[in-house]
């Protein structure tokens, strides 16, 4: 009971502040006095930097402070006294503000008493409006006015100009002020004046910014590594601290020995340098401290900041156990919400199951099979939390030992909950919950229909699998993340999962062309796990539409259009008219899939979708879809027509060039004549390509595999067919024709000043006819350009996304339906003005028309 209460305890808040020298001493477990780390036996020296009072990093040793062993003891801070005070780099700017804003004699703020109230009031107002940064800025401008005040309004002392030199030295009228002096001045500032600077003196007295005592971080945060040779390699921080301790000692000795002031000052500066680099080794104003090898040391600031730093790498991003990663491959026979897991993975990943009276015998068998026999188990966990590995030796004994209350970590089995993910995880559909299906082989298998949300393909993509370990996590994953709950994209409120590739061509073939015998129809339907064939019409030849209709629920009605614009009508579950293509079955497609989802719910619509998909694949199998070179053949007439079009276009371009050369080309407003010429030529050539494409499309035989792919929307457009059959077209580079290359020409095979079509990247023939070397080169140019474009875009959009996510992550809908941020500020009174959740709408709206039709 006691323990469980502890588990529910939460951190309420975290307060930030400065540590006073007294506080540092109070929390310290040890005083560090010697730079030595270990004695001859390799045992940490008392009073050294690796003192075991500061925590332990060696197995077998016990921390002297808390008596705990390695990995149990968190470590403890130590401290060290500095021979002379030293400035903390990170507070230099604030110290400067304080020195400039206060009297050098009496320490009061340089604001006359009568003005004080007004300024404070203004500052408080600014802070309320703009926060701390606003206050600081406002105060600085107030100070800049005060800087000219040469006399203290309180004690009439003359003020001098304080400047800062390089990283940490303060000067006054070009004379250096030592940190000791700075410190005494800061000490003099009364508490009530410190508030004006936006500093809370109860938490951060300014004199604490000058270090007299340096806290030594626990050893556990700077562990040493033992190299293969048995040599110890210390952490960068330990190195740096060693330097500090060494110099500090020398400084002590010299002061005690009464050494000349020059030597002491040199050492003091050196100490300042070491402490400065200890805090921040990336300051551009000072040379960074380096290893012997020359690479800069990683000190405190480097550890915290940037993407690889503590905050973004370890705190905001975490790593998990119970995960696996391997290559993915497709398997259309899986359900959409299943994932095929290799046996080898299933035997490594486990699910904890608690033994009760009722499942005792069941779980005992798992323990009995052990880790090597599937389905077995790898560990058992005793009620006191001790984990025991199951091995051949311990198995017998553990079987005897287990009883209700123990936990068995059994192998992954069919139907277990898992979370499947592909990076980059750009939207919530990039992490979905799948049910495990243990399969032979070494890859994760997934239904190709869910490629779209993951943006996955099978050219070597790898994906990650996570196994939730608690009942809460599993139920959340199941309820909120399972594939069927994610079918509708929250981006636009339509189905993001649908048929693709073969499934589309297959369904298109089936519903448009195929006629099958009853036996064949039953075969097709069986492969989509349909067992009830009563809906098949009783006739020898059954049309594809009739076969497909069996998959549609009996009471489903839909009227839509196909990709081409033909009507498609589904009446009480029967495709009455039209055929199915990507406009109604595809990913992110129209309302058909969305309506099915709305009508029949997530679970059922997933099953229906899976059947559609398998039916398509099966139909494609049956029909056979195979590309043929002859698919792109043209008859003699079309060939001639296309040739004509292109020749005409080239002639037209020549005319334009002629016109331009004579200076008779009328420039478009705001354009030079050259630009106008380029635009006009592009226009002409694009038209030629489109026209020839049209001829190809008209000429194309409807039932060639290439065309079927284009028409069904499975892959490719008619444009691509035209490119193969007739004309590749103009290669566009940076929004125009290709103009790069040598002086006056693109390639050395053209004459200078050639403005013709071929010299600037127009490819008049198709892929099938082949390309000339220069054409090939131009194509490679544009190809390369688009690769560059992608490479440059990814980090840009990635950063935009990071900023957006960071700015908006706290927004949520409250119980009063307002949208609020973390500090409960209202951002919208109703989410999206009407409160609708996009992923529950149909394309972003409530379909009123549909409701009216349905209510009678």
């Amino acid at each position, binding site marked *: 009971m006691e323990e469980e209460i502890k588990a529910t305890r939460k951190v309420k808040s975290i307060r930030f502040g400065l540590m006073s020298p007294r506080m540092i001493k109070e929390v310290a477990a040890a005083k560090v006095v010697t730079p030595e780390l270990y004695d001859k036996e390799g045992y940490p020296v008392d009073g050294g930097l690796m003192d075991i009072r500061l925590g332990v990093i060696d197995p077998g040793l016990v921390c002297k402070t808390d008596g705990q062993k390695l990995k149990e003891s968190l470590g403890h801070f130590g401290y060290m006294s500095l021979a002379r005070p030293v400035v903390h780099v990170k*507070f230099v700017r604030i110290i400067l503000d304080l020195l400039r804003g206060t009297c050098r004699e009496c320490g009061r703020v340089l604001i006359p008493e009568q003005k004080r109230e007004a300024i404070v009031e203004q500052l408080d107002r600014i802070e309320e409006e703009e926060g701390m940064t606003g206050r600081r800025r406002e105060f600085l401008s107030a100070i800049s006015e005060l800087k000219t005040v040469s006399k203290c309004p309180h004690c009439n002392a003359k003020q001098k100009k304080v400047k800062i030199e390089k990283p940490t030295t303060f000067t006054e009228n070009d004379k250096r002020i030592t940190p000791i002096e700075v410190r005494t001045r800061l000490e003099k500032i009364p508490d009530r004046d410190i508030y004006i600077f936006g500093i809370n003196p109860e938490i951060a007295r300014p004199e604490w910014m000058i270090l007299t005592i340096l806290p030594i971080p626990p050893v556990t945060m700077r562990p040493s590594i033992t190299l293969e040779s048995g040599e110890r390699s210390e952490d960068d921080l330990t190195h740096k601290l060693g330097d500090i301790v060494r110099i500090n000692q020398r400084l002590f000795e010299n002061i005690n020995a009464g050494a000349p002031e020059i030597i002491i000052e040199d050492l003091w500066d050196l100490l300042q340098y070491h402490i400065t680099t200890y805090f921040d080794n990336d300051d551009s104003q000072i040379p960074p401290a380096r290893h012997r090898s020359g690479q800069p040391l990683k000190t405190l600031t480097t550890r915290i900041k940037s993407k690889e730093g503590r905050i973004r790498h370890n705190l905001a991003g975490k790593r998990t156990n119970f995960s696996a990663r391997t290559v993915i491959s497709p398997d259309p026979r899986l359900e959409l919400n299943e994932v095929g897991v290799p046996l080898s993975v299933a035997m490594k990943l486990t699910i904890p199951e608690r033994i009760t009276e009722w499942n005792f015998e069941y779980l005992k068998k798992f323990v009995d099979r052990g880790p090597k026999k599937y389905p077995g188990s790898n560990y058992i966990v005793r009620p006191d939390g001790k984990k025991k590995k199951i091995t051949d030796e311990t198995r017998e004994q553990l079987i005897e030992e287990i009883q209700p209350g123990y936990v068995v970590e059994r192998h992954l089995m069919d139907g277990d909950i898992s979370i499947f993910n592909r990076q980059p995880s750009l939207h919530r559909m990039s992490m979905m919950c799948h049910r495990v299906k243990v399969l032979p082989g070494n890859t994760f298998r997934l239904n190709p229909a869910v490629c779209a949300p993951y943006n996955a393909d099978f050219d070597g993509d790898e994906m990650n699998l996570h196994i939730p370990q608690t009942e809460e996590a599993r139920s959340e994953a199941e309820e909120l993340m399972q594939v069927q709950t994610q079918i509708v994209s929250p981006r636009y409120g339509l189905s993001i999962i649908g048929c693709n590739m073969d499934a589309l061509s297959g369904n298109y073939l089936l519903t448009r062309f195929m006629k099958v015998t009853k036996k064949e129809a039953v075969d097709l339907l069986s492969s989509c796990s349909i067992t009830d064939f009563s809906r098949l019409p009783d006739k020898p030849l059954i049309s594809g539409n009739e076969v497909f209709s069996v998959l549609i629920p009996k009471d489903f009605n839909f009227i839509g259009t196909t990709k081409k614009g033909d009507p498609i009508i589904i009446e009480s579950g029967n495709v009455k008219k039209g055929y199915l293509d990507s406009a109604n079955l595809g990913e992110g497609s129209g309302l058909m899939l969305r309506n099915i989802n709305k009508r029949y719910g997530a679970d059922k619509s997933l099953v229906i979708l899976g059947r559609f998909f398998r039916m398509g694949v099966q139909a494609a199998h049956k029909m056979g879809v195979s590309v043929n070179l002859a698919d792109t053949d043209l008859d003699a007439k079309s060939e001639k027509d296309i040739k004509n079009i292109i020749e005409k276009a080239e002639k037209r371009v020549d005319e334009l060039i002629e016109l331009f050369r004579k200076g008779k080309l009328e420039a478009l407003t705001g354009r030079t004549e050259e630009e106008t010429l380029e635009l006009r030529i592009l226009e002409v050539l694009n038209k030629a390509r489109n026209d020839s494409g049209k001829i190809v499309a008209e000429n194309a035989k409807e039932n060639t595999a290439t065309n079927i792919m284009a028409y069904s929307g499975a892959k490719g457009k008619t444009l691509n067919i035209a490119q193969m059959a007739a004309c590749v077209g103009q290669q566009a580079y940076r929004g125009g024709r290709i103009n790069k290359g040598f002086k006056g020409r693109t390639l050395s095979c053209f004459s200078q000043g050639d403005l013709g079509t071929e010299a600037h990247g127009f490819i008049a023939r198709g892929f099938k006819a082949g390309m000339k070397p220069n054409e090939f080169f131009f194509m490679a140019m544009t190809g390369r350009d688009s690769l560059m474009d992608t490479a440059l*875009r990814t980090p840009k959009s990635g950063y935009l996304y990071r900023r957006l996510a*960071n700015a908006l992550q706290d*927004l949520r809908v409250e119980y009063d339906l307002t949208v609020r941020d973390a500090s409960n*500020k209202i951002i919208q009174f*109703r989410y999206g003005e009407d409160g609708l959740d996009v992923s529950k709408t149909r394309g972003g709206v409530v379909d009123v028309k549909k409701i009216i039709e349905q209510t009678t």
Partner: protein
Amino acid sequence: MDKEKLIDQYAERLPKRIIQDVKAHLPKNCDTKRLKKIMEAVVSEYEDTLAEPGESVGLVAAESIGEPSTQMTLRTFHFAGVSEMNVTMGLPRVIEVLDARKTLSTPMTEIYLKKPYSDGKDIKKISQRIKERKLKEFVKEISINIVENTVKIDLDKKKIEEYEQTHINILKLVDKAAKGFKTKQEGDTIFIDTVKEDNLNEIYKLKEKIKNLYFCGIKNITQVLPIQRGDEFLIVTAGINLKEILKLDFVDTFRTKSNDIYEMRRVFGIEAARQSIINEVTAMFESQGIDIDIRHVMLVADMMTNTGEIMGINRTGIVKDKSSVLARASFETPIKHIIQAAMSGEEDYLSSVIENVMINQPVPLGSGLPKLIANFDNQKNKR
């Protein structure tokens, strides 16, 4: 009429748009009984479709904008329906808007016109009136007489008349620019006597200054382009000066707009700025054929404008305004934020997402929002 009334009774329970939709699609022969049924069905559908409390709408919006932006092309310039004028498009433009940049790479104004002009009347002429013109366009020549140290300006009277700018006192204009010099006008020529001797450099500078003197039109408008959109003529300009443009009598002040959000904020107010953020962003995604629900863009725009000032989505804008130290630190420049927090003794109440992720606690969103309270002491006592 009765039906309308009945429908309007639901005005409080349904958003305006749905009410309108019902009115638009209602069949004529519908009786009150059926209508009531319909309305109830609509209400229940609407309530089913509402976003659940705790829904992390912000992150969904960020995802919905961030994910497709990886598919956008980088192509900086494109033709905004007009092949004559270049406009920043695609991802760079989206970044520009969401970043709330003060200086745009292609500032633009779309000027809608009042009735006779919107049909194309005098379109060329009035568009020319808008463009900023420098003095150099209205002179035949500006020359320096090295011997006498004078500058001679030959005015182009014909052109001045053509542009109906005869009322401008050019001498006064030049006089203002050439302070400390003697100026005089003889017919169409203006002379400037330079008092200082032999300072050719100075005189040359003066000449350049005079050349670029503002003469007429609207300042800042560097390029004008009358275009036809549908049946309507409008003027697109490069450069922005809404305040002056709106003063023109032929301008439709209700629809004229600029692509500079700050200009919209200055001239029309924060709500207009919000709307123009929405318009600009949606237009960019639409032009690339990317489908994004407007609610996501709305949320971003509301976030950017909810203080009454425009805040960009960056560390000096929205992120700066966060209440949590750790949330700010986790974005950019962590050390700065932590030091600042230490100085003022700030306290982080762990009310947003990222801090709770850091310390392994449930985040206050979605299923982490509701809290169950169990009184353990009581239970103990019972036992």
